């Protein structure tokens, strides 16, 4: 399967604007370096297409998103609030991405990791594409991975 990065970017732009009232712009820097802390949310898709979406978002933006979604001061947003906010964003991304897939597909519930020293992988999958954008001065990444059938039995 091939993905159109522009299409994914447009999905993200629509969701970010509708949910957070924030604009995004493509990140053309080509760098996605280490940050002190980040949240990574993963949502899986099964059915006619099998794979996952990974949303990687700096803690600062997650905090901003949580403050907007839950109408709270950013400083008062808890780790759980941040995780809920990012989970909601990846859930919407997953739902919209699913609409582009052949029928019938199912979404899992999102899982969100928050921390400063971790790596997240989706074994048995291949990277179909990655979309990077800037929102409120923060670099965000969306990776789309497809399950590799040949490696599934390894």
């Amino acid at each position: 399967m091939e993905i159109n990065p522009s299409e994914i970017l447009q999905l993200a732009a629509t969701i970010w604007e509708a949910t957070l009232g924030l604009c995004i712009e493509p990140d053309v820097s080509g760098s996605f370096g280490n940050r002190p802390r980040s949240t990574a949310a993963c949502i899986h898709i099964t059915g006619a297409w099998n794979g996952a979406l990974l949303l990687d978002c700096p803690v600062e933006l997650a905090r901003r998103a949580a403050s907007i979604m839950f109408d709270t001061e950013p400083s008062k947003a808890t780790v759980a609030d941040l995780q809920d906010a990012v989970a909601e964003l990846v859930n919407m991304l997953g739902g919209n991405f699913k609409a582009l897939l052949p029928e019938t597909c199912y979404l899992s519930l999102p899982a969100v990791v928050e921390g400063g020293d971790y790596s997240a992988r989706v074994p048995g999958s291949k990277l179909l594409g990655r979309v990077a954008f800037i929102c409120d001065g923060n670099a965000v990444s969306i990776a789309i991975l497809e399950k590799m059938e040949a490696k599934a039995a390894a």
Partner: protein
Amino acid sequence: MTQTQTPNPVINPKLIVPFMNAVRQVFKTMAGVETTVQKPFIKPHPGASYDVCGIIGFSGDITGTVSVSFSDSAAQKLVEAFAGAPLDRSSPDFADAIGELANMIAGSAKQHLGGLASISVPSVVIGKGYTISNMTNSQCLVIPCGSPFGEFAVEVSIKQKTV
């Protein structure tokens, strides 16, 4: 590592027993070791108590996530037994092994859960001091387990779709 336990209101054995059996079966078959399963309890708050975590998503009639979590040392020993050779935790093969183990446990349990469900490709998180939140409205049940490699836990956060 410690787990803070809360009094257990209700734990549905139909959701627990398949995973307890799956853990025993998979470890015996793939790593050649016996495991012990301790009393499950409801996780009081999100948070990781372990360093290496394999997460599987369920979708369909049963939705949620199941994770298998290990300390670094337990994961290293288990992967060595599973793969037949030591693997560095930064190696993709290390994550593959953890993911495959989680996949087997979830797949084995799924057959006995009832209902039609699909399981996703696994996600594997490796690190220190991170928290994982599973966005379900259901309780997260922790099944503490013991093995010759060390302690580990299976966390089940799934619910069955009501008709």
